[in-house]
């Protein structure tokens, strides 16, 4: 149990997928302009990442490893994740329309998100168990959401400031992301 908590904390803070691993930069920049969007995106990622982490673990353990097809991992995962997201979208639309309306446009947006793909590959490379995979996927997603929402808050404030022309928008965004990332390095000693 203790191990799982440590794993969780390290996934959220120490190895934060956005700020320490620098994966998922496009949604990080693209959906962080408005708090509202950032929150929507964060929830969509939590949802998809947990599902994707588990299903890819199953595919990996029971098919790829078993038949020695490890070299097909990347392409197999892409296919599986994409289909999964499509499936989930259809499922939600029919069965839980309220949730569908909330996550709406974000679901298809993360179909090919490298953060999702990255976490699935990390899970496999680290040879996590099924439970560990579940915890790591969930906490990576929480870390993603945390960083995204923090960053959106900062960017909304940046709007109020006078930013020199060459630094406006994405440039100042990247610089800010760098600074937040430095701050996250302080967590390094935690685990």
């Amino acid at each position, binding site marked *: 149990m203790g191990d799982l908590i440590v794993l969780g904390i390290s996934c959220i803070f120490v190895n934060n997928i956005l700020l320490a691993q620098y994966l998922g930069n496009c949604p990080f920049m693209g959906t962080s302009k408005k708090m509202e*969007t950032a929150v929507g995106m964060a929830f969509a990622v939590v949802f998809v990442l947990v599902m994707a982490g588990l299903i890819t673990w199953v595919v990996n353990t029971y*098919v790829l490893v078993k*038949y*020695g*097809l490890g*070299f*097909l991992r990347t*392409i*197999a995962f892409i*296919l*599986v994740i994409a*289909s999964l997201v*499509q*499936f989930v979208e*259809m*499922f939600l*639309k*029919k*069965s839980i329309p309220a949730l569908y309306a909330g996550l*709406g*446009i974000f679901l298809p947006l993360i179909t090919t998100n490298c953060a999702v793909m990255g976490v699935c590959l990390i899970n496999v490379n680290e040879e996590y168990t099924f439970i560990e995979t579940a915890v790591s996927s969930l906490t990576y997603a929480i870390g993603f959401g945390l960083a995204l929402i923090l960053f959106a808050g900062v960017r909304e404030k940046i*709007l*109020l*400031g*006078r930013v020199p022309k060459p630094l406006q928008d994405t440039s100042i965004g990247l610089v800010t992301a760098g600074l937040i990332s430095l701050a996250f390095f302080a967590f390094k000693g935690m685990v």
Partner: protein
Amino acid sequence: MLEAILFMLGLGVSCGSVLSIASKVFYVYEDPRIAEVESYLAGANCGGCGYAGCSAAAVAVVKGEAPPNVCIVAGADAAANIAAVMGVEVGTAEPLTSRNTCRGGDRADDKFYYMGINSCRALSAFYEGKRICSIGCLGLGDCIRACAFDALKMSDQGYPVVDEEKCVGCGACLKVCPKNILEIKTMSERLLKLNEADDALAPCQQTCPAEIDIPKYIRQIRDGNYEGAVNTIRERNPLLLSCGRVCPHPCENYCRRGIEDEPVSINQLKRFVADYEMNSGKRLPISCAPDTGKKVAVIGGGPAGLSCAYFLRRVGHAVTIFDDNPKLGGMIRYGIPEYRLPKKVLEWEIDGILKTGIVAKTNFKLGVDFTIGSLISSGFDAVFLGIGAWKDYTLRVEGENLEGCYTGINFLTRFAKWQQGDSDDEMPIGNRCVVIGGGNTAIDCVRTLIRLGAQEVNLVYRRTRAEMPANEVEIVAAEHEGVKFTFLAAPTKVVGDENGHCKQLEYLKMELGEPDASGRRRPVPIEGSETLLDCDMLITAIGQGPEISFKENDTERIKNLGITRWNTIDQVNPITLQTNIPYIFTAGDSATGASLVVEAIGGGRRAARSIHQYLSGEEVKAPEKALFKKHIKESIFESVPGIVQEKRAEMPELPVQERITCFDETDLVLEEKEALRESMRCLQCCRLCYNKDDKAA
């Protein structure tokens, strides 16, 4: 190798089949038009339209919640295609544009000095910001940074200016502005906007019963943009040629310049641009919102009816005007004489209003040729009553029905009809004429009589000159033209000769006593001071009220229409002008009693606003903070520093000798040079800000 190929095939097939089965199982019926509409949207998922992405926007369009032109990126072609999919007109909803309402900018004084804050939102969080004005622009440009379309820029004067070409009405600027300086409105919303207590309004604009943006049109004149000035006036007043001639300009009484100097000649500037348009030989286009499919009947084609019809038409309703007289215009055609408002000018003005697509049915009298009940049963959705005040009050003295005695409105309309060829009922004019009354009608009677060649014209009034309700300029003009005035005289009897023709007027001399409720000193008769005045024609022009007998021939429902004790049509609320019958609205003289042209025009617009609310299924109500004739306290000054006195533009007039022999227009229009000089006298006021004169040290 074989395993790898088999695996990939297997994975592909299973993913494919799972998805296809899922799409069957989880199939949700979706209007096929959604996909079609979405294909025409820009696909940018920018959210600029206010919906969460393009598919959400497409859903809203199909549900009818968003107009075909919802996409702010895709442009007009896309809107046309979407409209075709939906089978509607392209612009069922009008485009929105943003406007900045504050012109204070750097003119505004600062209350506090803040260091280092460079965002309006941050600034306003500290004691509402640095400006003295509670509503004014802070000038740090949050709106400019928020605009994704580059449609806003900071002007040299320190307030934002909207580039209407680029603005898509997304509302981003409005959301960030902490001071509500920016407003996003459609043309209809702008046309029907009423002055509110939180608005940036100059004292003159607060006073104008039609709520015209006076500083704006004067600024446009100053910039040589005469067409812009005409359009600005037309947003509030469709009768600018007429008002420019006959309006007693209550706005000028509140002109801030007038506190230290002579007020700006606001109305003459209006006339100047109005005449400019007429003489330019072309009409400026007047745009109307897309048709709404609702029909409104406007009864009475006077200023109130014309104004109401014009605004209703512009917001997209189908309007028919019904009028009892052979031509439209009401009192400004049949009451106000030719020498003040030439019929040619009026004709041009009314034509322009009708050209927006209003149908006029003349020689059609309510209560005789049709009833309100019959209008409703023939498919009109609402009715506007603007039938004016056409019933002369009488003196109630002995002998006032003798031959040679007339009443004011009756005399003026009969004469006007004869003069413009509507009838061949020529009236005999006396040599020694007496007109009783002190209002506009009395003055118009005496000045008309002078022009008709009466040898002596005497105006008899109960009080003194200072109390005469007629326009001051008119009284002066009548004096110049040789009218005699008998003040403090109360008629008691008309004496006739043996043929039953009036011969003399007997009156009692009066003196001024204690002030009455209205603050005017009440005249009291002097005992035994009966005096006789010779006359062979007598006109009583002591006021008039609405003729409401039409009710009697109407349905039971209409018979219950509320009437006040002054015989005017009662309103639930003087701002909404709705009557006790929800689909009937009223304004102008029939609602207020005899009043002014601008008052009728303002009322017509307010009624149009309420009718529009009524037809859109909204609750008919006045804005919570409607200013409605009140003034914003902080904007009314005691003194105005920084003014250098400069004479106001003198109105050019026809010389007296020339004008008393004909009906040519007496008052002339300003020369362009003089108009420009006059426009420079305007201080461009807002609530608190104004421009000090350059010459003031």
